[in-house]
């Protein structure tokens, strides 16, 4: 599928969901069960994207110290856990990867 088509469909669906209850007001209620399940959506989807990016950098499982992306990811997870600071987490993870790559080149 063309990237523009993906964007238009994704955008139309997003707008549709933002418009949904504004348009339907008074005619429909969200079931309580669905409301409760919704808070698990972001951590589930994001973790499902994080794990392969860290453990399978070249499409094969790599659980070793030579997997710099995993190492840098662990740094970011620790910083994120301790500080809860989004920007600091991103910067520490990126810095860790750049430093590891730079060390690997110079050694």
């Amino acid at each position, binding site marked *: *599928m063309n*990237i*523009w088509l*993906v*964007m*238009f*469909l*994704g*955008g139309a*669906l*997003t*707008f549709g*969901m*933002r*418009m*949904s*209850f*504004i*348009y339907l*007001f*008074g005619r429909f209620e*969200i079931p309580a*069960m669905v*409301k*409760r*399940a*919704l*808070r*698990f*959506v*972001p*951590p*589930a*989807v*994001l*973790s*499902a*994207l*994080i*794990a*392969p*990016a860290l*453990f399978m950098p070249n499409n094969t499982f790599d659980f070793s110290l030579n997997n710099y*992306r995993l190492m*840098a*990811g662990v740094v*970011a*997870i620790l910083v*994120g*856990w301790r500080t*809860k600071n*989004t*920007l600091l*987490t*991103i910067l520490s*993870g*990126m810095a860790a*990867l*750049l430093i590891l*790559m730079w060390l690997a080149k110079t050694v």
Partner: protein
Amino acid sequence: MKSFWAGVRAESPLLIGVFPFGLIYGALAIGAGISPAAAQMMSSIVFAGSAQFIAAQLIRESAPGLVIVLTIAVVNLRHMLYSASVAPYIEHLPARWKTVLAYLLTDEAYAATIIHYEEEGFTPTGHWFFFGAGLALWTTWQVSSALGIFLGAALPSSWPLDFAIPITFIAMVMPVLKDKPIVAAAVSAGTVALLAYSLPFKLGLILAALVGIFTGTYLENRE
């Protein structure tokens, strides 16, 4: 007009957090191989931060379009809750106002607007506040995406810019891991994503997300 500027002011502290995200989005969309024009248009067509990051990652991995669209939809499901929550306050407005406000209904615009509505209740100019908050966020997102796209094109290609995506996801997930069910949702989704990685059409991602959501809901119900 007074309400409009009150909305802009209420939104401004949130904009400080949004700006760097827009920069990072722009830069990594370029790193994911998306053209500058498409990367910028995504910020106004999809106009949803985390969904745009996810779309960029999936485009980089050349996931099928349908899976990308489905993932954007699942990630943005929460907007239906926002929609339900603001609906009673803008019920009286004509359709063109509802359309504009629905388009501007992002996480950050919702956060500022719902606080205002809950404090003030229904006011005749409340929708101008909503509009001010939404438009302030929209403008910030467009400008910061554009700067990020410019920056992304300028960085040397040897930089592992694509790694900014999973790192950003980590930064988004860590602050919400506050109780056991939500940690279990994250861990189970991550594990299934690895086990099901070889499934065709990136279906492993959808499966992993569903297992995570189910695990979290199940544990919460048992507590």
